[in-house]
């Protein structure tokens, strides 16, 4: 890019040598990457060390090496495997529903040419709500005596304690995440749809494509890249979903909503079993990195990374 013009910028000859090595761009990156390294490498080393140690907190932080004890425990921990399955179920449900609803809403908004911008603005609001507030608001709306949604469900004949029953509590926390993040998908898909050139759609109409065919063969391929990015970004967040569950059910009732992040938090900060918590955390990290790798690879193949 600026290759040909490097020369006039580097005035004193004395300076060219060290500059050549990292260059101006490298120099600019230094503060950021150095700080980021501090904030990520040190914690990573610490958590790895934790996973091999019994951590004592009284009288300063002390690590007692216990070797692979905690790692060995991982394999016999049936609860944890169940919690992983639950996390995956959670993940599939929330992300799946968000994609479907987001796509549906985006298509409808796209059809409404005139009021589109105002409506989109209203659709976006949940995205900015703190997840804790989403959770607490969810509790408020589903309270068994005065919740608005409890009352509405009562009108159609459902009279259960929503957050008190296993399945309903699970579905309720799914719904809360779906409420918060469907707007993101709507926003991204709508941006993708408005970018589809009119001429392509006209050509499809001339060829006699009906609504579904146009969607399937014209619109969907043109927004597939956008959809993919949205899907993968949501996936990364859905795995670490913590706030809403923590304030609504905190894993209950009877563990029905206990996902891996909740289990990890409880292991670390309720039972102060920090070594084992570190093991659970590292496994989560590996899973996340695998997803992120897939994210980058797919985007690369689609030519979406710069």
């Amino acid at each position, binding site marked *: 890019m600026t290759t*040909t*013009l490097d020369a*006039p*910028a580097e*005035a004193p000859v004395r300076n060219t040598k060290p500059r050549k090595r990292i260059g101006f*761009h490298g120099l*600019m*990156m230094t*503060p*950021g990457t150095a*700080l*980021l390294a501090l*904030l*990520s490498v*040190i914690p*990573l080393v*610490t958590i790895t060390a934790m996973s091999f140690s019994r951590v004592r*907190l009284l009288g300063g932080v002390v690590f007692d090496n216990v070797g692979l004890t905690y790692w060995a425990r991982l394999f016999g921990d049936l609860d944890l495997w169940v919690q992983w399955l639950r996390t995956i179920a959670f993940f599939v449900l929330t992300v799946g529903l968000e994609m479907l*609803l987001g796509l549906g*809403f985006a298509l*409808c*908004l796209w*059809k*409404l*040419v005139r009021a589109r911008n105002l409506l989109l*603005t209203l*659709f*976006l*609001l949940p*995205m900015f*709500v*703190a*997840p804790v*507030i989403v959770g*607490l*608001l*969810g509790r*408020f*709306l589903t309270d068994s005596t*005065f919740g*608005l949604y409890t*009352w509405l469900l009562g009108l159609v004949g459902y009279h259960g304690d929503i957050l008190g029953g296993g399945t309903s509590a699970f579905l309720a926390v799914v719904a809360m995440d779906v*409420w918060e993040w469907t707007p993101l998908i709507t926003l991204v898909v709508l941006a*993708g749809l*408005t970018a589809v050139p*009119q001429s392509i759609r006209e050509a499809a109409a001339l060829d006699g494509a009906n*609504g579904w065919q146009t969607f399937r063969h014209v619109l969907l391929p043109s927004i597939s890249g956008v959809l993919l*990015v949205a899907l993968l970004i949501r996936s990364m967040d859905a*795995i670490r979903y*913590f706030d809403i569950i923590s304030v609504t059910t905190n894993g209950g009732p009877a563990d029905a909503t206990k996902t891996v992040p909740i289990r*990890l938090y409880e292991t670390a*900060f309720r039972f102060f079993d*920090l070594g084992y*918590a570190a093991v659970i*955390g*590292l496994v*989560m*990290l590996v899973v996340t990195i695998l997803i*992120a*790798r897939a994210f980058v690879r797919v985007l690369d193949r689609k030519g979406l990374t710069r």
Partner: protein
Amino acid sequence: MTSAIDRTPLRARLGVRAVVIVGLLWTLVPLVWMVASSFKSDVDVTAAEPEFLFQPTLENYRSLFTGANNLGPYIWHSVLASGISSALAVAIGALAGYGLAGTRMRAKKHVAFWIISTRMAPIAVVVLPLFLLFRGANLIDSIPGLILAYLTFNLPFAIWLMSAFFAEVPPSVEESALVAGCTRWQAFWHVVLPLTKSGLVTTFVLCLVFSWNDYAFALVFSGPHSQTLPIAADQLVTQTGIDWGQLTAIGTIVVLPMIAAGLAVRRWLVTGLTLGAVTGE
């Protein structure tokens, strides 16, 4: 815009409208109900039949600021911690983002992946070791501790996002500045950086929203001297019951500024929320 192909049959148009109306109800009812409830008296909030018409009162807000647990300090902590953390993230992130966008080093891809992977790391994986490190460094229950903790997710986000905005600036702009005799720094500071003003604002606002809304980090790291608004909201949930009137009032206070900020940068949200992987419109 309304060409022949957009002229859908009446039934389909009604269907579209129905979906949008249902979608709007699903989206807005909780928020409207929260704001409405914050102006209700205790009796109205917990009425078994929902009260749609009620005598509005400011009682909930008044007791939030005059009661034993004054909300003022919480707001101040939130403003300080998320504001400073976001400002730092944008400042450092702009430099690094510029570097990342322009660099031609071979390991660029790996560096970029490393940066973004720190943003995507599970919160607990960051919280756990930081908890020990902060204990050692006396950073638990302090605003600097929170600022640093928020930087763990704000900084990689800011670097990545700013590099997306810098990549949009045509290289010729910088080249002509250099030809005109600017130093590299002057070209960056006076020519390239001003062109990414919208990127800077968007990055700041999104960082602000993320840290303002944070609960997991504040839960672990903050104490009486640093608790933020989301913690204040959570603390209203006690063994004896929840004061829903006050809770909806806190909710309103937490949510409204972020909605305003988020909508202010709506045009660049697609770029922001997809980390620049998709540039909207």
